[in-house]
């Protein structure tokens, strides 16, 4: 690949930003789902206890 | 609710931003003038910060390294030549035969442009080296001078 220093940083930077952003979105959704499921679990258990 | 105040405030800011943007659009709808347009006597360009787009005339580029001054001729290939003087290093893609948009102050009598911002305008062509089809120079000229 023929790139000047600036061009190399630009190319790498653009790809890194996009890959990290999309990966973060995926990871965020994963941890959000885990947290929500745990919360749902706790609440349904509590409800059954009450009943 | 305190939260509502923040949200409504943000929406107001958003509305203001959109309004300002649309005003800016009105200004920049004509993003640059062509060399022919700036020579038209009824266009008031004296003392105004304007943008002019054209092609870098081959053989016209002069670099003064000591002063960091760049001089070249911007043309539309129809006889409307402008001598552009720019302080600073040009973008990587700047070269003879390239499309440019300069921003600064134009002197119609001297046919010169004092440019503080020099931008390269490239065409929409993307070609690999071994592509046998001729590289389309007309595309670039059309995108700057044709609209």
């Amino acid at each position, binding site marked *: 690949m023929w790139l000047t220093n600036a061009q190399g940083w630009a190319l790498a930077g653009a790809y890194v930003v996009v890959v990290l952003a999309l990966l973060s979105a995926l990871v965020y959704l994963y941890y959000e789902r885990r947290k929500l499921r745990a919360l749902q679990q706790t609440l349904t258990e509590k409800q059954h206890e009450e009943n | 609710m305190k939260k509502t105040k923040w949200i409504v405030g943000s929406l107001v800011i958003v509305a203001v931003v959109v309004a300002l943007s649309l005003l800016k659009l009105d200004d920049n709808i004509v993003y640059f003038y062509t060399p022919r347009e700036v020579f038209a006597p009824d266009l008031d360009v004296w003392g105004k910060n304007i943008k002019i787009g054209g092609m870098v005339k081959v053989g016209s580029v002069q670099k003064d390294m000591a002063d960091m001054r760049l001089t070249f001729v911007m043309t539309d290939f129809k006889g409307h030549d402008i001598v552009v003087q720019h302080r600073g290093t040009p973008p990587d893609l700047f070269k003879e035969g390239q499309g440019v948009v300069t921003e600064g102050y134009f002197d119609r009598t001297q046919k010169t442009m004092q440019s503080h911002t020099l931008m*390269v305008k490239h065409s929409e062509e*993307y070609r690999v080296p071994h592509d046998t089809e001729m590289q389309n120079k007309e595309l670039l000229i059309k995108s700057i001078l044709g609209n």
Partner: protein
Amino acid sequence: MRAEFAAWRWGLALFALQLVGWGWGLYGVGTDVHQGDVYRIIYVHVPTCLTAFVCAFYLFLCSVYALRKKTEACLLWGQAAAELGLLFTVLGLLTGSIWGRVTWGVWWTWDARLLTTFILGVLFAAYLLLQQALPRGAAKTKASAALGILIFIDVPIVYKSVTWWRTLHQPPSIGGGTMSGEILTLLLITILSSLLFMTWLLFARVKNLRLQQRIAELVSDWH
């Protein structure tokens, strides 16, 4: 639950598909005679921008549905579509800015293309703020739907801006016959894989939002 689209395996597979496309974009496909290797930003810049447009289209579908059926069932999809629309618009503007700094020589300029795209991002943000600001009800559903339709109206304006007006940004490359076959092919592949991944994100996010809603109902039932 039987295998559904929101399952993690799909997310990982579609993300991996994008990585393969980008790997080829960086090391496989030929270089450009005009810009050199920095042109390869195209394989992240164009897909993110077009994906943002499709988010606006999803939001538009939700909005029309909400208005016709007078239901708020679609609001969760609208929320997710607007979030993703904002994300992809920001990514499009960032990659474009980086690319512009190297080719045009400036990080930003207010030409019609950049300005209308910026407005698109602001509108997505406004939609999300609206969801937070208004209480559930017919007013919220109607206002959201109206904004959702307005956002979609900006999309053809953004696309056509480089044709209708004089801009720094060049005219569209796709459909103009101005790209070598291998560049165009890879570009279409990266666009498609971006759209697929975004659609997966949409389904996954809606699933989370539904869970959140169910939890809120559980809490209010309980009290």
